[in-house]
């Protein structure tokens, strides 16, 4: 029902309107038709002076016109914060989040990923970004009761090949990761069937993907998570310093389109981002990388950061006895998940490891000692 209301309102904005339907003075309606004004958007784009001139109407008439269409557009648009707070229905509530499949990680995020908005997951390579994203693609398929959204996921690969082997491992081990869910429920979910993989290695393909292909899946309710792995790769080769204006425009357009999809379908968008060396003190400071002290910050600058609701960073905590080339799921290497900014969360972090069954947070009171013992 939510989707119906929203698509009606967007039609209201841009489509040709039958002005006779509005509660307007007939001379105003006639003037609208004569001036060939077809949509609400056209009216609101014009200044009052222009409208008066085009339609040859008085200021009072124009005021009344503006108020009438604004009122129709914004009918039922007010909520009090109390209503937002008291709304506990899983289809509309702000309290509903997408769980990460681990109570420690969910606690860090006060429930999980917010359903409306773009969440960024940034970090160095092999810090665990893809692992967390794959895990989310499985979590989203669980019932609402277990922190899922009872729907599938769209995974957009922009550089690497999709890690299907790892996904299969995770699917096979779900019962181990999700001990909180009864086995019958886990067995009923056909995880592989609901993950839709898209490849988009350049900007135009990506644009096409998010404007046409995935809105189809979202409209049909077949997916309620979109993962972009990674957003940075799209911009790596194509832009030099002199193209910064074009790059910024692409970033803003993609950001706005993803944001719009997220709002329309109450679907979280998870964008993976790479890191670059911090250019300024303030960038490094903001990422609070004092734990790692490697002075890196997420790529794509402030233009991209402005599009985000929440920014998370992952990093490997360096271990002296760590040997390189050891496969991920055999190491117990400890990583950090940090909240860099979010409107509802303080700056905080927790530790986690990547196990065979997936990403698991470390409860500092219990697991830290045993985790380090095993290294």
């Amino acid at each position, binding site marked *: 029902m939510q989707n119906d209301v929203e698509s009606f309102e967007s039609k209201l904005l841009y489509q040709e309107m039958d002005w006779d339907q509005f509660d*307007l003075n007939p001379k105003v309606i006639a003037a609208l038709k004569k001036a060939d004004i077809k949509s609400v958007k056209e009216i609101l784009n014009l200044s009052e002076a222009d409208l008066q001139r085009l339609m040859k109407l008085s200021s009072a008439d124009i005021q009344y016109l503006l108020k009438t269409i604004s009122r129709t557009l914004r009918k039922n648009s007010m909520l009090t*914060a109390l209503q937002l707070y008291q709304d506990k229905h899983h289809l509309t509530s702000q309290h509903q989040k997408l769980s990460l499949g681990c109570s420690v990680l969910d606690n860090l995020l006060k429930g999980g990923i917010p359903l409306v908005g773009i969440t960024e997951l940034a970090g160095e390579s092999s810090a665990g970004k893809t692992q967390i994203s794959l895990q989310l693609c499985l979590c989203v398929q669980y019932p609402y009761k277990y922190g899922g959204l009872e729907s599938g996921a769209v995974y957009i690969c922009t550089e690497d090949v999709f890690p299907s082997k790892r996904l299969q491992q995770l699917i096979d081990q779900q019962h181990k990761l999700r001990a909180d869910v009864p086995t019958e429920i886990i067995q009923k979910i056909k995880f592989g069937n609901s993950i839709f993989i898209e490849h988009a290695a350049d900007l135009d393909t990506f644009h096409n993907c998010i404007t046409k292909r995935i809105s189809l899946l979202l409209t049909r309710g077949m997916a309620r998570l979109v993962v972009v792995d990674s957003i940075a790769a799209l911009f790596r080769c194509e832009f030099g310093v002199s193209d910064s204006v074009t790059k910024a425009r692409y970033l803003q357009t993609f950001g706005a389109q993803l944001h719009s999809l997220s709002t329309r379908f109450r679907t979280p968008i998870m964008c993976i981002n790479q890191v670059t060396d911090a250019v300024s003190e303030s960038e490094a400071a903001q990422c609070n990388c004092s734990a790692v002290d490697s002075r890196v910050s997420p790529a794509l600058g402030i233009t991209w950061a402005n599009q985000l609701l929440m920014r998370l960073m992952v990093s490997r905590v360096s271990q002296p006895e760590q040997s390189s080339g050891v496969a991920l799921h055999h190491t117990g290497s400890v990583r950090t998940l940090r909240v860099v900014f979010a409107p509802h969360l303080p700056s905080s972090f927790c530790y986690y490891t990547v196990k065979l069954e997936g990403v698991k947070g470390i409860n500092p009171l219990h697991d830290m000692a045993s985790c380090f013992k095993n290294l």
Partner: protein
Amino acid sequence: MQRDVGSLPLAPALRARLVAAGFQTAQELLDTGPCGLSKEIGISKEEALEALQVVRQECHSDATQTAGAPGTSRKCTALELLEQEQAQGFIITFCSALDNILGGGVQLTKITEICGEPGVGKTQLCMQLAVDVQIPECFGGLAGEAVFIDTEGSFMVDRVVDVATACVQHCQLIAEAHQEEDHLKALETFSLESILSHIYYFRCRDYIELLAQVYLLPDFLSEHSKVRLVVIDGIAFPFRHDFEDLSLRTRLLNGLAQQLIIIANDHKAAVVLTNQMTTRIGQSQSTLVPALGESWGHAATVRLIFHWDNNQRLATLYKSPSQKESTIPYHITVSALL
């Protein structure tokens, strides 16, 4: 005033009802008032208010045309204006350093703009103001209500609950220390639920919805006369994409600014806007500046820029008609921005 009802620019159905109910002149309509009108002809009070507004404007423009004189204007001396301004209320922020550099707090009847990078605390301050504006008068507040227009979807009600709870506790401590009757009485109605119920939340998903919402604000504020704060979080987001024609954007933003100035003045409310930062590439280096261009810089009366210096958050008062430019440090805690 003596204008015939049948000639007024109202919807035909409405006009027919008025004539059928026996109204003949515009003056009769104005004399009846919205309540009487809605009862007489069976329309909602909102529609009656609208109709009367149209009638009033029509009569006003008639009067100026026939009399050939400027419309009614209030004349007052600069001293009167100064006294009025000093009597204006402020919305305190609970960050005394911030209140100090602002000259008391966020000022009513003015537009205050908060600029900063993502994550620096702009939305936090807005949420705090939406709570602080409601503090009862005996605790030094305005006992007002708040309108919160959200364009980015960053209004997380759980955070507002934290801030509101802390604010109520703060007032309770004051009441316990002073043990005055009006404090205790005020606390009876100043609770988490009452605070949340007086924050009116509007979600605008693009600039058209925002423009429409602002057209409706004057009537909303007339109906909810206790509103003393209007927040638009953020003003930049809907205007920074989708605009091939930058002159259209400039014109729309200027129109928006003018409307907000009028709203702030007419309804004695503080208007608070949040803005993004963008990179301006200079000759030798690039700097961060507020978004939306140079001409937008004139819209706000007061401009605050939030930024980082190492791990410390700083607020700089960049533009103010009465206070000097200064910078103070602040923190964001569970309960507030301090």
